[in-house]
């Protein structure tokens, strides 16, 4: 009886693993298995049969693949852990040998700190020589008072509880407390530090931030034409925006919030209507 059940389950699985190349840009679900190009050759029809002998077959068929967010490796299998669209980026060296980075582009709201990410944080506490900064993750990040441009033991930066900080993660992994800095490797601020007094901070989904920060993003170019503005994007889903008047700031914030689910035609319509007024 139990055997009969397992046979049913087998036939229901419906194809099982799919080739990673063929599902690029499509929605993948947790639990799905993806096949990489070299596995596709090996497991394809007649793959196990006759194959021309080559001296270093093992060495040349190996490609380096990086599992990005939403994917995990289990033995030699590639498994999906998040729902979203599968994306791929060819390795920098070109060639297109099947390697590169695969990741799942999901519409998540909760931020998980990643090393090197630029984020907007809110200072929640000052204790001794570190600040605690809320970045929207599972625990507050720590920020040393020495990691500001020009800060020394004598010359402390002027940071108060409640201030907004634009910084970068230098330590971010699942086992340790995340650590932020507001200087780059040369000791320069490079745009980071405490964000000015006025302006408006609002939250959007992480997917929208990635969309806005993509090179040659139309939305940002259009918004820039509308009013003169200052804007800061944090990878943790926070946007700080400031225009000349409060009214303009609110308009900009509303546009940015709304443009997530708009098509490019709808966007053009809205922008042309605003440009007229």
């Amino acid at each position, binding site marked *: 009886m139990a055997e009969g*059940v397992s046979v*049913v389950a087998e036939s229901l699985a419906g194809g099982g693993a799919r080739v990673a190349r063929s599902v690029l840009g499509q*929605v993948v*679900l947790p639990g799905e298995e993806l096949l990489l190009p070299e596995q596709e050759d090996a497991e394809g029809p007649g793959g196990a049969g006759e194959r021309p002998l080559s001296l270093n077959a093992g060495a040349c068929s190996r490609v380096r693949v990086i599992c990005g967010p939403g994917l995990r490796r289990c033995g030699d299998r590639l498994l999906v*852990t998040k729902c979203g669209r599968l994306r791929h980026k060819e390795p920098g060296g070109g060639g297109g040998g099947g390697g590169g980075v695969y990741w799942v582009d999901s519409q998540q709201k909760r931020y998980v700190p990643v090393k090197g990410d630029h984020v907007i944080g809110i200072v929640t506490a000052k204790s001794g020589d570190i600040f605690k900064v809320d970045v929207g993750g599972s625990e507050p990040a720590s920020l040393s008072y020495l990691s500001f441009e020009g800060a020394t033991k004598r010359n402390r930066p002027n940071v108060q509880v409640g201030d907004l900080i634009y910084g970068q993660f230098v330590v971010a992994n699942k086992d340790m407390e995340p650590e932020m800095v507001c200087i780059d490797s040369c000791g320069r601020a490079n745009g980071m530090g405490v964000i000015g007094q006025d302006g408006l901070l609002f939250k959007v989904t992480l997917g929208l931030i990635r969309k806005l920060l993509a090179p040659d993003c139309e939305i940002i170019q259009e918004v820039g034409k509308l009013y003169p503005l200052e804007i800061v994007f944090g990878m943790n889903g926070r946007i700080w925006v400031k225009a000349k008047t409060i009214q303009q700031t609110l308009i900009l914030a509303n546009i940015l919030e709304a443009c997530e689910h708009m098509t490019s035609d709808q966007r053009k319509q809205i922008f042309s209507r605003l440009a007229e007024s």
Partner: protein
Amino acid sequence: MEEERHTEAKIGAETGRGSSPRGPGCSLRHFACEQNLLSRPDGSASFLQGDTSVLAGVYGPAEVKVSKEIFNKATLEVILRPKIGLPGVAEKSRERLIRNTCEAVVLGTLHPRTSITVVLQVVSDAGSGAQLLACCLNAACMALVDAGVPMRALFCGVTCALDSDGTLVLDPTSKREKEARAVLTFALDNVERKLLMSSTKGLFSDAELQQCLAAAQAASQHVFRFYRESLQRRYSKS
């Protein structure tokens, strides 16, 4: 706008159901699902199945109380709120079943020392416990997916009832459930369609259990197909 999306989801559900082969005693009532309908939780979903409807919200990976902190994995918590009144023993028991199911599929080790909280609110309940459990499981799964919590697989809940003469009814109405000799609820995963959890009531033989399980596995295919359609619809909007 919310209303519009809801009807859209319902139409999708109907078409999804229409394509399913409806053999004798092998049909699920229509289901509908809407995701990301709450603004404050990290993930949310409402799941409607027949006359039972559950709203789920997921918070996580979020900060955790020191007393509940687990050093090598995420603390998973499930809260089930009945439609009226305070949660009782039945709710606590269901909470535990759902929590254990979620724990089997959520990759908690990727977010140690955090908490993942699933809050389930019963919106409408036809008075059948097994139906409600299945609906809660489906709502919890969709909300976890919406929150982007890393998962090993998806899961769904399917209810079977065995009549006094031994006929098998999938997804029984509350009336049939009351008349049934035994009611079985299974949680199944989408990778190997293996059993994750089972909750049973009444008398049944070993062969009948296997029969119900096979029927539930066949039915789970429709639920997973519906999950896929519903998630594809969600991602087609961006």
